[in-house]
């Protein structure tokens, strides 16, 4: 947020994007880490590298252990279940569809956020090295396009985290299971 505050606008100088409603609106200082832009960048890159390493280890584990099969959203297997889960939450149907490790909607959400995380890393690299990685940057519609994607991804991850927290607060007992791994069935 410290970084966004340094130029709280989207689009190149002299040709700002018309569709972005928050041109010139800086994020609240309470969300700005690091004291100033240089400090904010240090935090940003430090955490970003840890995020990348964490992601690589996680994906390697999921692939190596075969865990991906019960975690990943597979449209054919989970599409209908996810749809029915939404209907259940909206009280349109009385009983939830059968679920095993995750239900269909959870698979959709968790797989989706992994996709967003990958887009965050790629769009971040595109902003970070727009000349050395210019093919990647072009893929995101150039430097300013990649900045917009990066900010949108941040919004999506923040939304995901907020929803996740609200759901955990609604079902506090699940939290114990999430941390201990729950019972093995």
């Amino acid at each position, binding site marked *: 947020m410290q*970084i*966004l505050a*340094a*130029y709280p*606008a989207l689009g*190149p*100088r*002299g*040709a700002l994007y018309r569709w972005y409603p928050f041109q010139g609106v800086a994020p609240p200082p309470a969300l700005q880490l*690091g*004291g*100033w*832009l*240089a*400090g904010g*960048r*240090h*935090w940003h*890159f*430090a955490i970003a*590298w*840890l995020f990348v390493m964490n992601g690589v280890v996680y994906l390697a584990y999921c692939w190596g252990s075969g865990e991906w099969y019960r975690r990943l959203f597979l449209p054919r297997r989970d599409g209908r279940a996810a749809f029915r889960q939404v209907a259940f939450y909206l009280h349109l149907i009385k009983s939830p569809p059968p679920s095993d490790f995750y239900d269909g909607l959870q698979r959709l959400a968790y797989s989706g956020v992994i996709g967003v995380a990958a887009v965050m890393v790629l769009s971040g690299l595109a902003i*970070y*090295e*727009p*000349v*050395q*990685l*210019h093919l990647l940057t072009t893929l995101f519609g*150039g*430097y*300013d396009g990649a*900045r917009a994607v990066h900010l949108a991804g941040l919004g999506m991850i923040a939304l995901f985290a907020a929803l996740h927290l609200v759901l955990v607060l609604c079902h506090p007992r699940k939290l114990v299971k999430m941390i201990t791994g729950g019972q093995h069935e």
Partner: protein
Amino acid sequence: MSSARASVAGVSRRRFILGASAGALLGGCQSRPVSAFLRAMQSWNGGFQAWLYSANRLAPQLPATAQTPEAAIPVYYISDFLPQPPPNWTLSIGGLVRRPMVLTLAQLQEMTAVEMRVQHHCVEGWSAVASWRGVRMVDLARLVDAQPSARYVEFRSFDSNYWSSWDRASAFHPQTILAYAMNGHPLSAEHGAPVRLYSAVKLGYKMVKYLSAINFMPAPSGGYWEDQGYDWFAGV
């Protein structure tokens, strides 16, 4: 216009003062392990950028239609007033070179010129496009016969001694030039007259305006923003 531009510089100065005090504050309350962690990650980050850098990779040349209106390009300098070149301005080139030189603007303009229109990336997050004309740094290095031991290049200015130091590879990139013209006219005082450093492969704060001297060095000598905490390599 000039008052608006001066206020831009005022903002950057104010931001600097704020930043410096915030930096001091952070230095005071950030525990040693935290700052050691940030430093370690920063050095990894710099190493990654240097590893990724390729001397053959060129930034794309952009069409004239991509050019940013000149009035929309921010103007930064650190002095209280728009820096004015001293009368009889010259550029001294020295350090680890076999033929140290003092060049006038006319002498620079006699050298082979290149023209480039590339995207500018500021550390603040904005981008802009202008076209630049000048002499390739690598040609200048050949002229003064820079020694192989000169692994770094330092650029100094008459803007309250604003300076920056570069790695040799980036300084010798074919798109790193000493620019004396912008968008087809001589450089204005706002954009670093009479001669500024311009490059497609670094962030804006590395491209020293208002040049006064270039020194070929055995070791890096930091820089105005770099010494306050900004990334030294700052490649794009």
